[in-house]
């Protein structure tokens, strides 16, 4: 084929190549170099020593876990031969252990064989009581991990665990090579610079040079299990700059092929995409921007340690009709369009995914100002002289707080206007994000203390199991002075029925049944009580060059989870 003909139909060619590429360009190292920009530069290659997303993503290029989360939030085996289930005996009947079978014939990048000993060692490495493992949460409730034979690993739990997929699932807990890290356990872990910066892995690339907070150079791993992958011979990760500069370097100038975390205003992104060099893609995990309604009184007239506690129910917001009216007055479609564009979807759910857990709750998606007014009229809230509703001498006036963030301030302005239309007066307040999310029990402005009537922020859950996330909304998780204002039941929602169902859930194993229960719990919090008013299901955005093929953005796992499949689209 002539180059000219190809150039003339660039768009069509790109689409064609994307479909045909894996077959067409399947040879290791045939596609040269790929450039990735991560504006928050990675500072280590060992995810057990850093909880930063940037470090986990960088390490996932070389290190691999036993199983990965897919783009849908399901699990697929990676170094494991198959997923353990009750049927194949991988999950024990008493739910107290799980047995992984490893793929045979896998080699580390230095040519030595990968065995169950490496897995057992990694668990011991992280669970070492004298070392500060950043991913210890992944190993919570694990009693021991042992190598049964060369290719079998058994993980034993302290208590029965209906969802055993936490340790060694996802890029946060990959397998380290025992031979390399044997002398780096416990207190010595952070001092092993050579090992932490150049870990030997089983992944598609191996580290050639690591410069902290600057550049990482990778080369195709000669021992990688698929002889035709990866298509690129070299992969360079460059750090530095900011989100806008990173997006520009892919979308406008084309210097880089992939830019991580390009969360920018929709019209800014649209302007950059107009250059035609690339696309901004979004992946959806479990991040939901939501409003929490304070069911307790935060009035500053109360004594300091009684504000926002169950001792004083909220004078206005304990009226379910008011909460419902507040939710009805919001146009989620418009919020999404203005704030997040493609990287957001309007939602009525606190748990938007995985599919089995997502409720079909869509009633709130249409704004209903008139309905909200009628509802308030019915509930006895009548407009006063200045249009603000009153009942029993109480004015319908709310303090609405959130963190400082351009999108959130736009949301505040819009919501304030909608609420003023239904006769609710809103006073806006913003707090510096490091204070708001800082969790300092001494500060009055944290989101847990909630010294306001309404607050807005986003949150998500780790992995693909929403159960612990829902369990945070029980009565005993209400932040208060007796637990140093920790706990994430910020709405102060307390329903004994909800607590009972959460308790029941820990006994359910069947995924479909767990999902059904999850949907029910989600609806109790959102549709039925409006204690939580979900607004936007947010994705994570990344910019991808039109010449880069095979990218499947994944919000459940590392974004570079399938870097082995990346290839160059010839134009």
């Amino acid at each position, binding site marked *: 084929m002539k180059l000219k003909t190809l150039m003339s139909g660039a768009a069509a060619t790109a689409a064609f190549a994307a479909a045909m590429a894996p077959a067409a360009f399947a040879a290791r190292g045939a596609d040269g170099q790929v450039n990735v920009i991560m504006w928050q530069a990675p500072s280590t290659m060992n995810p057990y020593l850093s909880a930063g997303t940037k470090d986990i993503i960088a390490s996932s290029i070389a290190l691999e876990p036993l199983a990965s989360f897919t783009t849908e939030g399901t699990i697929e085996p990676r170094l494991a031969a198959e997923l353990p289930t009750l049927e194949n005996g991988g999950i024990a009947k008493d739910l107290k252990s799980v047995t992984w079978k490893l793929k045979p014939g896998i080699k580390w990048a230095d040519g030595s064989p990968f065995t169950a000993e490496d897995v057992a060692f990694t668990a011991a490495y992280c669970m070492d009581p004298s070392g500060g493992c950043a991913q210890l949460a992944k190993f919570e409730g694990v009693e021991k991990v042992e190598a049964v034979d060369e290719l079998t690993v058994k993980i034993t739990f302290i208590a029965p665990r209906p969802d055993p997929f936490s340790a060694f699932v996802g890029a946060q807990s990959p397998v380290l090579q025992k031979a390399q890290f044997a002398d780096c356990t416990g207190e010595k872990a952070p001092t092993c610079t050579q090992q932490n910066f150049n870990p030997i892995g089983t992944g598609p690339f191996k580290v050639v040079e690591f410069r902290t907070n600057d550049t990482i150079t990778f080369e195709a791993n000669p021992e990688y299990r698929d002889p035709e992958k990866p298509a690129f011979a070299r992969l360079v990760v460059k750090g530095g700059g900011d989100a*806008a500069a990173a997006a520009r370097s892919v979308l406008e100038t084309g210097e880089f092929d992939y830019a991580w975390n390009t969360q*920018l*205003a929709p*019209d*800014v992104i649209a*302007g950059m995409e107009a250059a035609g060099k690339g696309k901004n893609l979004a992946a959806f995990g479990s991040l939901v921007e939501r409003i929490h309604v304070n069911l307790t009184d935060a009035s*500053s007239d109360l004594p300091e340690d009684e504000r926002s506690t169950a001792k004083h129910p909220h004078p206005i917001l304990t009226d379910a009709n008011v909460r419902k009216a507040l939710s009805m007055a919001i146009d989620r479609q*418009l919020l999404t369009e*203005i704030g997040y564009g493609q990287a957001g979807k309007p939602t009525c759910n606190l748990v938007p995914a995985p599919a089995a857990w997502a409720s079909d709750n869509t009633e709130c998606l249409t704004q209903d100002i008139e309905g909200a007014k009628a509802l308030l009229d019915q509930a006895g809230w009548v407009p006063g002289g200045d249009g603000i509703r009153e009942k029993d001498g109480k004015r319908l006036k709310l303090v609405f707080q959130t*963190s*400082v963030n*351009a999108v959130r*301030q*736009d949301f*505040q*302005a*819009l919501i*304030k*206007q909608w609420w003023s239309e239904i006769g609710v007066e809103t*006073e*806006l*307040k*913003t*707090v*510096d994000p490091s*204070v708001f999310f800082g969790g300092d029990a001494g*500060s*009055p*402005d944290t989101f847990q203390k909630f010294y306001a009537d309404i607050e807005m922020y986003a949150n998500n859950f780790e992995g693909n199991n929403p159960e612990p996330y829902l369990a945070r909304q029980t009565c005993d998780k209400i932040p208060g002075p007796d637990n140093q204002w920790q706990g994430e039941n910020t709405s102060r929602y307390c329903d004994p029925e909800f607590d009972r169902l959460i308790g029941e859930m820990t006994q359910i194993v069947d995924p479909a049944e767990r999902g059904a229960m999850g949907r029910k719990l989600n609806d109790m919090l959102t549709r039925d009580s409006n204690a939580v008013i979900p607004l936007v299901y947010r994705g994570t955005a990344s910019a991808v060059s039109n010449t880069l093929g095979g990218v499947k953005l994944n919000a459940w796992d590392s974004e570079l989870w399938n870097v082995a499949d990346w290839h160059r689209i010839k134009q």
Partner: protein
Amino acid sequence: MTDRLLIEESAVNAAAPGAEALPPAAPPPEAPARSQWRDIWRQFRSHRGAMVALVMFVAIILFVTVGPLVWTIEPTFVDIRARNQGFSAAHPLGTDQLGRDLLARLMAGGQVSLAVGLTAMAIALSLGSLIGISSGYFRRLDAPLMRLTELFLALPLLPLLLLMVTLFREPLGKAMGPAGGTFLLIVGAIGVTSWMQTARIVRGEVLGLKEREFILAAKSIGTPAPRMILRHVLPNVVSPIVVAATLGIATAIITESALSFLGLGFPPDFPTWGRLLYDAVDQMQMYPWRVVLPGLLISLTVLSVNYIGDGLRDAMDPRIRKR
């Protein structure tokens, strides 16, 4: 022709001695009006830059005070269908990302920014001059006051402001409403943390002044200290104070916007010039006017105040005039 002219001239000449001979019926009309202030004003008017600046400053003040009476669109009204619009009849300066009218926002923002700038400057100036003059004039106060100044200079501004906001926002907000409380807090915070430069400059000037002959002369006839300061010292250090004032307004406007940006300033639905500027930076490439306009207004205000200060200094201090 020549004759007539001569006659006229002689007539004028002749009149003069006659007039002198007459007893004065009334004092000459200019005499009482030729006060010091009129003199300054006459001098000030001859400074062209200062006059242009004065007109500009008055125009800006009129824009933010009278403007909202003429242009009555609510600055916080969100009209989502009209977002990101350019210049039009309905919105002469366009709209922002939520469809809020930029002209109305600039007017409302100007009220807050100017009020903050002027008040904070006034506080900083009075504090600075008071401390500067006392430490320069009274030797005994010099060391403690200057150590205090250094102490304030060494304080990190932002953590201090954070602390002040955390401690006082709620009580003040409850007493005076969220906007009034924040205004007092911000103005107080900026004033209390920006008087130090003025104090040091003024002290230096006063120290030099103290050795001058006219001060010694005044002292030798027994002028008491308060009178000395008000009558002889203060008028002579007015020029550095005025310069510090002009710079102070600019700093106060910018500090206010930085505070709002950190969530420590006014509530987000209160437009101020600084906030308008910060909010628009993201979309600078696409909608440059949204950055340019508030930026221009801040710069114009600062420049005009600066030039007015320059003119005032020249007018008040004959020694450095035309230098």
